[in-house]
């Protein structure tokens, strides 16, 4: 357990020293989301209708941006060899890195979401619902993304390959995430959408460390 927490702390410390990476992800998210009002015009009804979809799609793209370095940095400098030979099973190494990734990517995006939501003139109730859905959905984005990041490790230009691999897998999270965020306007029940988001999270919590560790073992050979 202490080795698990130690690895998370190590990754957080590295992220803190290289703040630019995390800041860029959030800036990308905010700036992209701000472009839409310029493109579609300042009509409040339309913007309110668009907001959940825009927030989810841009958050998803922002997470994609940060995925390439997830394991690549450790592979390139040889740290991955040492992690594989450490006391912590490789599955838990993957999970620890995913947790650290969410804390440095998903969590900042959630904090930036209210700002975007206000720009789109979303009422307070909808903002709360959007954030609840993001809290449940963004961990899945990190989990699924880690599978893509680990699978493309050996490949040349893996960074270009990750979106092709990961985006289709993001679709369920996107559908239920947006549905949960706009359930009131669309007059559908919120609870089932959130339950589906939770189910995706739980399945991925199990699958991602196993798949990621298997892919890393291949990459280390």
């Amino acid at each position, binding site marked *: 357990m202490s080795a698990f927490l130690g690895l998370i702390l190590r990754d957080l410390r590295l992220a803190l020293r290289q703040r630019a990476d995390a800041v860029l992800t959030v800036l990308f998210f905010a700036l992209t989301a701000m472009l839409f009002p310029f493109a579609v015009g300042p009509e409040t009804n339309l913007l309110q209708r668009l907001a959940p979809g825009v927030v989810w799609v841009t958050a998803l793209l922002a997470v994609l941006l940060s995925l390439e370095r997830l394991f690549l940095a450790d592979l390139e400098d*040889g*740290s991955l060899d040492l992690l594989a030979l450490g*006391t912590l099973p490789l599955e838990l190494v993957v999970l620890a890195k995913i947790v650290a990734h969410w804390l440095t990517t998903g969590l900042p995006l959630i904090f930036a979401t209210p700002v975007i939501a206000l720009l789109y003139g979303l009422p307070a109730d909808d903002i709360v619902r959007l954030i609840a859905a993001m809290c449940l959905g963004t961990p899945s984005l990190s989990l699924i993304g880690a599978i893509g990041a680990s699978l493309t490790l050996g490949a040349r230009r893996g960074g270009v390959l990750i979106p092709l691999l990961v985006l289709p897998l993001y679709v369920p999270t996107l559908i239920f995430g947006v549905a949960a965020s706009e359930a009131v306007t669309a007059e559908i029940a919120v609870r089932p959408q959130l339950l589906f988001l939770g189910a995706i999270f739980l399945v991925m919590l199990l699958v991602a460390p196993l798949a990621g560790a298997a892919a890393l073992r291949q990459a280390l050979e």
Partner: protein
Amino acid sequence: MGQFEGRAVACFRGGRMVFQDLSFALAPGGAALVLGPNGSGKSSLLRLLAGLLKPAAGNLIYDGRPVAADPDLHHGRIAYLGHLNAIKAVLSVRENVATWLPGGAAASTAADAALERFGLLPLAAQPARLLSAGQRRRLALARLTARGGKIWLLDEPSVGLDRESQRSLEAVVARHRAAGGLVFLASHTAIELPDAIELNLSDHRPDRLPELIW
């Protein structure tokens, strides 16, 4: 401490047989010098001994039990130094060692002791990106000694080291062996390794495939 044995080990990588039919046995305190020209599979052998690669044939046996039966247990015995130094440029020299050690404050003390051995203590608070190539190698060696392990696998450990550091390296290797540890060392430079057996990989080249036999 047990005996580490390889029985008719073969390594297959990138679509070709790198070496085959390699056997050895090291008793506690033993050392093996891995020899061979570039590309003969020295690094592959060390990765294979670490358990990062699977042997294409043959068995690795530690203390009478096959290594493949419990890979995680075997990983715990290994202290591996590869070509890459696994140094994070943004962490300080001390942090680069301490993050790999268990325990908070105790890790820092243990890290300092290891840095002292390779003369890096005066630089402990500096970010690792300021280190020279030789100092990086020393930092990697300091981390290896701090982490410890029964089986040391050293891949060209002396690259970039000055003479004094090389003597420190020989000293820590000797101390490790005196405590019953094992060492596998691949190097092109002369490193003092008394009573080491030699594993010459050019003797274990696979037979050329009879391509034109028909």
